[in-house]
């Protein structure tokens, strides 16, 4: 009942505002008239009576305002009024408006962009997977391992599939997607295939969009049926969404796989990256993943991921213990024996997916923290800008207070203003975020298939929250500070004095801002140094300038001799290309696969096999193509690369040291392979070349001419690489080289040609520092600009509010340099306090990022020196204009004004 009444009044107040106001006017007029009539009755003249009545009432406007405040819905109306007022007053200072909106928008989009990345990589469940939290990856981990050894093998899968009660389904899948050749000749392409067991789709609980997934028969041991499930994207790209796609066949290598189903749009299963097709493990393992004919029986090698869906209600730890019991009972062989205290550990799919991305959670967490710091800087900056603006309006505020506005009303008015600014900025921020996210997704995460679109509800919700936080925190302090004015001082003093306390709050804000900026710049510097350290590593290969080309000839059952013949034809074509300086053929390349080898001295035992020695078979010009320096001797020529020529080898520097520690290894004879193999003399020593890891020291390597490669089983030589060093820009030669390889022999699969720097394994290894440098760098620059703006604002405001004082000083004979010194000193004091505080915090917080750096200490003097110098320069630069302002003060005029 009361509520109905209230609603009715609310409606009347909002919809019939005019009538309600009129009624209030009438009511108050009647009150005044009645009062005046009283006075008249007591003998006053009509005009005296009217005046006396008005005095009694004590301000009609005030009474009206008080009454309005009692009305239902008044908050809405006054907010509306304040909004319009704020809007008009903001429009009157467009420079301020644009500056603040830009600052807030950049701060919010920095946070929203990072939020988007983290949200998608770490918190979005894989699409189309039922109850993804019960899907786990099985790894073998020691108690202290966070992740452990993630690859297992087929026999372990078979054992667990049969006995593991805690798991509803167990599935095996390749370690990662692999490129496989589809078609031949001009129409050939390479696609990303993912061999899985038939149970994989059941385990994930996904339903096909068309057709069906694999049956158990199609994945039966030892050799499954060549069928394929294609992704929605591949269906579009390759088949133009042909409705009759089921039953069509794909020529993969020299086999034809029949399409039996299409996966739903966006489904990538356990992978984060794109998948084009899924193949039954038993049909596709050979030759695409392994050439080992015994892969289904030998438990020694590990090459595949094991996934399981744990039954509801069973804790992961219990399920892991059950798996350990089963495996311990089933295996007593070398694999189980070599587990070194490692036991099964179940890692939830969400975690497992992002693990191999090269973006450790620590890095993402750190970036999120940095984005928050940017937001804090933005808040401090905007707060100080709003404070300055509020102080300029001190007279207006004082007049309003004098006229009876309550402090609460004024605070509300100023908060409405900051809310209006923040909301506007939020809208701008959405566009900026879209642009930034697109850039980051493209530049740094080209290999990820994102779960969600850039702009989604979570991102908008997050941005809205950020808007609110900025509005409240940036608006509250200026609002409270500026309305605290003691009435008379503000009115009397004008805009000159009476602001000591406020200037202090503003100065504190700027100091905080400088400190936070210093921290960000230090972080950016440390990451940049790490990236440069990593890039400057002597890898033995010029990754940015060397192209490699490969073709899946082995998948076509070409004999090793045939593979070698085709590759050499291709080599001749590539060498003939204008713009190619060197080219060579090789069994493998840096960051590619690798083969271990036994190396021994005649009459001696083989060198201990630790990490290496590793073997590579190469043609003439290999080291020149890589850009690896020959330390001694020479590299192979065409004359060496011949079955009948004298046996020769080239060794890496570290192998040379082991073979011949005290004198040159040149001319020494070593045996590569079995004891009875012929001795080959060392004709060259080459600098160490990285094998797979950018950071690890390169292991010892031995190189043989390709034609003398009897040491390897023939089946290992089913794939060869071409390697080429263009004279100019490597990227421009990619397509010519690919065409040259393709045209060498008709009916070949598609060739892959790319820079070594663009190999996925290299990109992944560098991502951490690239991401850190790019994001820290942009945050740092943003913060630097904001700090400069903040300092400039503070100093120039100071000068403006001390015109009088400076005028007096100049009138008393202060020289221009003294005035300038005073202004700069003030800027530098604020700056220096902030820099020292920021550097101190950064040094203390160094531990947090130490593990993410490379080759640089968390308190690197170069970095900190550079940051401090930058910040001081910014401090001086920010005071240039204020100094000019101060110097142009005319003493007489300053004294005369006010």
């Amino acid at each position, binding site marked *: *009942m*009361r509520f*109905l*009444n*209230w609603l009715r*009044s609310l409606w009347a107040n909002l919809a019939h505002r005019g009538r309600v106001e009129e*009624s*209030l006017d*009438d*009511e*108050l007029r*009647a*009150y005044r*008239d*009645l*009062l005046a*009539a*009283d006075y008249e009755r007591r003998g006053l003249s009509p005009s005296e009576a009217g005046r006396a009545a008005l005095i*009694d*009432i*004590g*301000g009609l406007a*005030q*009474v009206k305002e*008080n*009454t309005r*405040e*009692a*009305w*239902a819905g008044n908050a809405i109306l006054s907010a509306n009024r304040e909004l319009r007022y704020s809007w008009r007053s903001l429009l009157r200072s467009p420079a301020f408006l644009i500056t603040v909106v830009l600052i807030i928008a950049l701060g919010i989009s920095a946070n929203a962009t990072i939020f988007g990345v983290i949200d998608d990589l770490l918190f979005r469940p894989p699409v189309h997977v039922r109850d993804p939290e019960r899907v786990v990856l099985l790894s073998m981990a020691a108690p202290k391992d966070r992740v452990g050894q993630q690859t297992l093998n087929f026999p372990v899968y078979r054992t667990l599939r049969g006995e593991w009660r805690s798991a509803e389904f167990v599935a095996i899948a390749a370690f990662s997607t692999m490129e496989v050749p589809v078609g031949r000749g001009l129409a050939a392409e390479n696609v990303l295939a993912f061999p899985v067991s038939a149970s994989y789709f059941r385990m994930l609980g996904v339903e096909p969009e068309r057709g069906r997934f694999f049956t158990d028969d199609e994945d039966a041991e030892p050799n499954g049926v060549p069928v394929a499930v294609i992704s929605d994207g591949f269906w579009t790209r390759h088949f133009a969404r042909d409705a009759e796609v089921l039953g069509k066949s794909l020529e993969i290598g020299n086999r034809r796989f029949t399409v039996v189903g299409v996966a739903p749009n966006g489904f990538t299963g356990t992978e984060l990256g794109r998948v084009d097709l899924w193949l039954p493990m038993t049909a596709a393992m050979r030759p695409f993943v392994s050439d080992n004919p015994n892969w289904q029986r030998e438990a020694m090698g590990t090459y595949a991921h094991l996934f399981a869906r744990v039954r509801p209600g069973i804790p992961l730890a219990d399920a892991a213990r059950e798996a350990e019991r089963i495996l311990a009972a089933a295996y007593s062989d070398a694999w189980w024996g070599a587990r070194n205290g490692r036991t099964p550990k179940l890692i939830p799919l969400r975690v497992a997916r992002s693990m191999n991305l090269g973006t450790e959670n620590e890095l993402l967490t750190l970036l999120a923290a940095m984005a928050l710091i940017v937001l804090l800087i933005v808040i401090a900056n905007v707060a100080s800008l709003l404070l300055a603006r509020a102080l300029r309006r001190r007279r207006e505020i004082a007049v309003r207070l004098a006229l009876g506005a309550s402090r609460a009303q004024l605070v509300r008015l100023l908060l409405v203003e900051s809310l209006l600014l923040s909301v506007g900025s939020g809208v701008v921020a959405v566009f900026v975020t879209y642009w930034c996210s697109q850039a980051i997704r493209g530049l740094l995460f080209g290999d990820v298939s994102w779960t969600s679109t850039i702009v989604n509800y979570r991102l908008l919700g997050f941005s809205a929250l950020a808007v609110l936080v900025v509005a409240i925190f940036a608006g509250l302090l200026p609002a409270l500070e500026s309305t605290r004015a003691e009435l008379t001082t503000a009115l009397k003093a004008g805009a000159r004095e009476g602001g000591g306390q406020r200037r202090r709050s503003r100065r504190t804000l700027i100091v905080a801002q400088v400190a936070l900026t210093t921290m960000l710049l230090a972080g950016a510097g440390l990451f940049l140094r790490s990236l440069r350290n990593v890039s400057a590593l002597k890898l033995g290969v010029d990754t940015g300038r060397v192209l490699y080309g490969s073709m899946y000839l082995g998948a076509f059952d070409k004999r090793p001799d045939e593979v070698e013949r085709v590759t050499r034809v291709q080599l001749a074509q590539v060498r003939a290309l204008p713009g190619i300086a060197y080219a060579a053929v090789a069994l493998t390349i840096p960051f590619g696969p690798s083969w271990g080898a036994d190396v021994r001295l005649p009459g001696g035992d083989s060198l201990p096999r630790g990490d290496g020695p590793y073997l590579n078979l190469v043609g003439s010009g290999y080291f020149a193509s890589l850009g690896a320096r020959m330390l001694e001797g020479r590299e192979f020529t065409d004359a060496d690369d011949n079955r009948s020529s004298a046996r020769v080898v080239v060794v890496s520097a570290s192998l040379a040291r082991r073979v011949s520690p005290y004198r040159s290894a040149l001319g020494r004879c070593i045996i590569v392979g079995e004891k009875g193999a012929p001795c080959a003399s060392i004709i060259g020593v080459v600098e160490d070349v990285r094998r797979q890891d950018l950071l690890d020291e390169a292991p010892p390597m031995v190189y043989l001419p390709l034609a003398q490669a009897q040491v390897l089983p023939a089946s290992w030589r089913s794939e060869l690489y071409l390697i080429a060093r263009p004279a100019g820009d490597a990227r421009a030669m990619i397509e010519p080289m690919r065409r040259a390889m393709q045209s060498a022999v008709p009916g070949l699969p598609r060739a892959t040609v790319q820079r070594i720097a663009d190999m996925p394994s290299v990109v992944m290894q560098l991502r951490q520092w690239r991401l850190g440098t790019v994001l820290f760098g942009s945050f740092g620059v943003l913060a630097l600009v904001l700090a400069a703006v903040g300092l400039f604002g503070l100093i120039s405001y100071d000068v403006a509010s001390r015109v009088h004082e400076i005028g007096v000083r100049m009138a008393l004979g202060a020289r221009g340099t003294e005035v300038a010194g005073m202004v700069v000193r003030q800027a530098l004091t604020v700056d220096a306090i902030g820099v020292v505080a920021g550097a101190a915090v950064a040094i203390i917080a160094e531990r947090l990022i130490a593990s993410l750096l490379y080759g640089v200490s968390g308190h690197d003097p170069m970095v900190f020196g550079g940051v401090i110098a930058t910040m001081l320069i910014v401090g001086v630069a920010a005071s240039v204009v204020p100094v000019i302002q101060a110097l142009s003060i005319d003493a007489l005029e300053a004294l005369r004004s006010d």
Partner: protein
Amino acid sequence: MARHTPLLQGTLDLLILKALSLQPLHGLGVSRRIEQMTKGAYVVRPGSLFPALHRLEEQGWLAAAWGDSENNRRAKFYRLTAAGKRQLSAETDEWHRVSLAMRAALEST
């Protein structure tokens, strides 16, 4: 002039309800009646009177209508509604309880 006592928080509403319990009054009438009832201790200024009247009206305890005053001027008259009467008796009881308790507390030794 009579000594003015500051109004206790919440007493203004009760005084207004009480003032209107006998007959409908316009704004000035309400303030006169309160002055009279409290023997001049309370003088309600329009700055607090009108907000209170409007609030009580919105709460449904008062109803208002335009009518003619004693000397034939138009004025807005407030009267107690049924809900207002209930509210008056509830608040009166509450007030008695509070003042009894306060008296007991202040006279205890």
